[in-house]
């Protein structure tokens, strides 16, 4: 079996706390080391034990960026999850389980037979006990079984188990025995060619990538309050602090996290914070202050469905309006989206540069599916973006006047220097102010300063890179407009459809605000069958574009907490190509 042009889709399901994540991580890493490209995501409920979870891995010899909702292989750790996910296993697929009391799953086994599914079974509890383990070892036994079914040599996965338990000698011995016993208990079902030419990839999730990008960009203070799905950035920063020297502060709330970050930025270092929509609600007054005192500020929103607590561990793209319109008063801001780990690594570096050069808040929209999905990324994508701070050069620090800090300029951008770096000081005033920062309520001065700040929006609009077109530039059979993670699905879809002779293209917004209207106009004039693709109910980017006079033939909107799967876009295209044609 050759995975050059096709993907193999594995789903591992089990209760939260059953060790599912361990299986998923071990198998993903082992597959990466064999040279495969893969994308893996974990669906799980917002609790620590119980409830069913699913770890999905899609792998191929060519880059895989998105996920399918269907499985070729289903690995079930327990009955509940098995029942919940069985329908996602395709006809003639492979079903791996260790459930001994088969009387309880007769329905499933009959369905399996009907769907010509190959069932692979070994008594995982018994094997665990026989090898000195507890029921908890079922996950390792199933890892062995899965690895054998895939037909790969045991050693490759053994190495990962060793790494995983390297500090727990006693458990390691049991785990290795269980892994081997699981491997030996079943027969290989597949013979998969291992990639000959191995490309150097990194396997990481979006949060890790953002953290690494921020470290790369010279961020020195990270302050945050835990909130899914952004929390792992905080953990990751803290774990690396001994080697990076970054000051990591878990704040008492999101208001504090944002204020600490703004205080650090205003005082002259690079800092960021991350949260989800609900936490960002609390940060909005700070964003407004950053807008007024023209201080750089960088915040990441890991989106999940709302309102209120919503679905804490699921994904959404529903906080675009929040990012665009939050905070009192009017001030320029930059809103960016990130689509995948490689994008996150690069974009966060740009976010720091933009925030400092234009002295504005930058809001980076991520999504649960970006935050937590692991993806193999070509190591060449981890590029260093030169740091641009937009500060007054050292030789000019002695020639400053206090009025330079908020000087009325044509571009709206005035000189910024670090407090204490010059004998010339200034007032960073949250009250309306004149050029030095002294409070003013004079109508004329208020207008001039207001206009100066707002002029930055035009300056930024001209400098920001335009939206990106994926696929052919014009006259596509069907076109999509989207932002964030939909890029990854569309990249895979565009390639699939090219092979079928159907042209699909995408206008992807990495920078959502300020909007580059001219570029959008060109795209709309060159394509006719244009559809909106967004992970929210209202079609928030769509509404924004409609207000600018653009219109869509249709809208593919999803708001049930799941990301866009290949199947979603695939069936939408089939419906809308025929209509169009």
């Amino acid at each position, binding site marked *: 079996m050759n995975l050059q042009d096709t993907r193999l889709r594995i789903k591992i399901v089990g209760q939260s706390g059953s060790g599912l994540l361990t299986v998923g991580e071990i198998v993903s890493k082992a597959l990466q080391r064999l040279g495969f490209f893969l994308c893996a995501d974990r669906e799980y409920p917002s609790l620590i034990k119980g409830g069913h979870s699913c770890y999905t891995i899609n792998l191929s010899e060519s880059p895989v960026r998105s996920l399918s909702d269907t499985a070729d292989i289903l690995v079930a750790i327990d009955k509940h999850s098995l029942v919940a996910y069985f329908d996602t296993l395709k006809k003639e697929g492979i079903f791996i389980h260790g459930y001994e009391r088969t009387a309880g799953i007769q329905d499933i086994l009959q369905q399996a037979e009907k769907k010509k599914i190959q069932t692979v079974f070994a008594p995982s509890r018994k094997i665990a006990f026989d090898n000195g383990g507890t029921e908890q070892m079922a996950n390792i036994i199933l890892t062995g079984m899965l690895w054998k079914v895939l037909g790969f040599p045991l050693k490759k996965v053994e190495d990962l188990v060793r790494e995983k338990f390297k500090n727990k000698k006693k458990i390691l011995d049991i785990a290795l025995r269980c892994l081997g016993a699981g491997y030996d208990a079943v027969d290989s079902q597949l013979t998969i060619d291992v990639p000959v030419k191995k490309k150097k*990839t*990194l*396997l990481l999730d979006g949060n*890790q990538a953002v953290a*690494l990008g921020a*470290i*790369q960009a*010279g961020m020195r*203070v990270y302050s945050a309050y835990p909130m899914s799905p952004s929390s792992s950035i905080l953990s990751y920063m803290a774990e*690396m602090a*001994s*080697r*990076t*020297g970054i*000051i990591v*502060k878990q*704040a*008492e709330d999101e*208001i*504090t996290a944002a*204020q*600490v*970050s*703004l*205080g*650090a930025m*205003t*005082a*002259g*270092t*690079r*800092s960021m914070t991350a949260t989800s929509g609900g936490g960002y609600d609390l940060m909005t*007054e*700070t964003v407004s*202050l950053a807008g007024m*005192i023209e201080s750089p500020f960088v915040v990441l929103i890991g989106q999940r469905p709302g309102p209120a607590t919503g679905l804490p561990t699921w994904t959404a793209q529903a906080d675009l309006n929040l990012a665009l319109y939050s905070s009192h008063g009017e001030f320029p801001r930059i809103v960016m989206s990130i689509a995948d780990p490689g994008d996150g690594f690069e974009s966060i570096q740009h976010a720091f540069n933009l925030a400092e050069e234009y002295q504005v808040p930058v809001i980076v929209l991520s999504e649960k599916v970006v935050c937590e999905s692991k993806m193999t990324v070509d*190591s060449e994508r*981890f590029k*260093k973006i*030169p*740091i641009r*701070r937009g500060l007054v050069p050292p030789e000019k620090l002695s020639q400053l006047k206090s009025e330079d800090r908020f000087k009325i300029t044509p571009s709206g951008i005035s000189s910024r220097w670090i*407090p*204490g*770096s*010059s*004998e*010339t*000081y*200034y*007032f*960073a*005033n*949250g*009250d309306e*102010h004149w050029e*030095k*920062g*002294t*409070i003013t309520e004079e109508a004329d001065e208020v207008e001039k300063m207001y206009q100066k700040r707002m002029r930055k929006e035009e300056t930024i609009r001209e400098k920001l890179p335009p939206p990106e077109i994926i696929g052919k530039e014009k006259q596509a059979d069907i076109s999509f407009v989207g932002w964030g993670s939909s890029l990854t699905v569309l990249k895979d879809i565009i390639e699939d459809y090219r092979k079928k002779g159907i042209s699909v293209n995408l206008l992807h917004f990495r920078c959502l605000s300020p909007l580059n209207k001219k570029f959008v106009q060109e795209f709309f004039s060159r394509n006719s069958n244009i559809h909106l693709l967004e992970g929210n109910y209202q079609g928030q980017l769509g509404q924004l574009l409609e207000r600018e006079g653009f219109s869509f033939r249709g809208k593919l909107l999803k708001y049930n907490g799941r990301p866009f799967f290949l199947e979603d876009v695939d069936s939408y295209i089939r419906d809308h190509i025929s209509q169009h044609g």
Partner: protein
Amino acid sequence: MDKKRLSELVHQSDAYNAYESDEVLTWCGGCGNYSIQNALKRALVLQKIPPHKTLMCFDIGCHGNGSDKIEGYTIHGLHGRVLPLAAGASMTVDPDIKVMAFAGDGGTMSEGINHLIHTVRSNYPFAFFHHDNQNYALTTGQPSATTKKGCPMNAAPQGVMTDPINTLQLVLSLEPSFVAQTLSADIDHMTDVFQKALCHQGFAFVNILQGCPTYNREATNEWYLRHVQRVEEQKDYDPTDIWAARRIVAQKEKIPLGILFLDTAQKDFLHTLPDRDPASHFPTREVIPRDITEFLSALE
């Protein structure tokens, strides 16, 4: 007040004048903010801190309208949020920059009271000057959490129904490292206390009993002067004894002034960071491209 020390000011009029602003002061006649800002300028001069080595962070309130009436680097932030703002600044600035924060009793004891608790707990390296005039003066005299029970106020015409929070009791319950109380009617005392706060390594909490001639008719300067007692005049007062401090702020006979509590052994925030050397702390200069190869190769 050490009069000899104070007399040094006479020879430092240039240094003092460097802090003087041309801006028109906008406080009411007799407002405590005049003397507080004067005492602050004196303390800064006596500590030999020039304006460009300060970073003064202001909350919202009458005191905050002084954010552009003293020369130096200032940030005028949001209501109730000055403590975390100053915390971020204090972990960032070069060691020779003095971070200070100023807020009233509205912002500190209501809107941002959670920040006060965690700032004390984190022992960030900056001095905090709590302007306690027992009301929301800038919004025309509503009661605050420190207004005395029974006082008729704007929005409480029949008198405040609830007991005030005892600010010092609260702060002392959090194992602070520096707690002092002073009075806006006594510039010399303030100068002395402010200097000690500026020298403290860690979070220095300075409670200033501030006169508000417009909205606080109960606790006037004259009233305070009749009721205060300096702790140094008390026999055997030990400012390193937390229970002595807690007792003295609990009793209702006399209002204690001076350094009420001091714990110099407590590490400030920067000294608790295991991975950094506070002696060479320059986050402003550390914004340079980092080598992340080791982290990337762990992901291969």
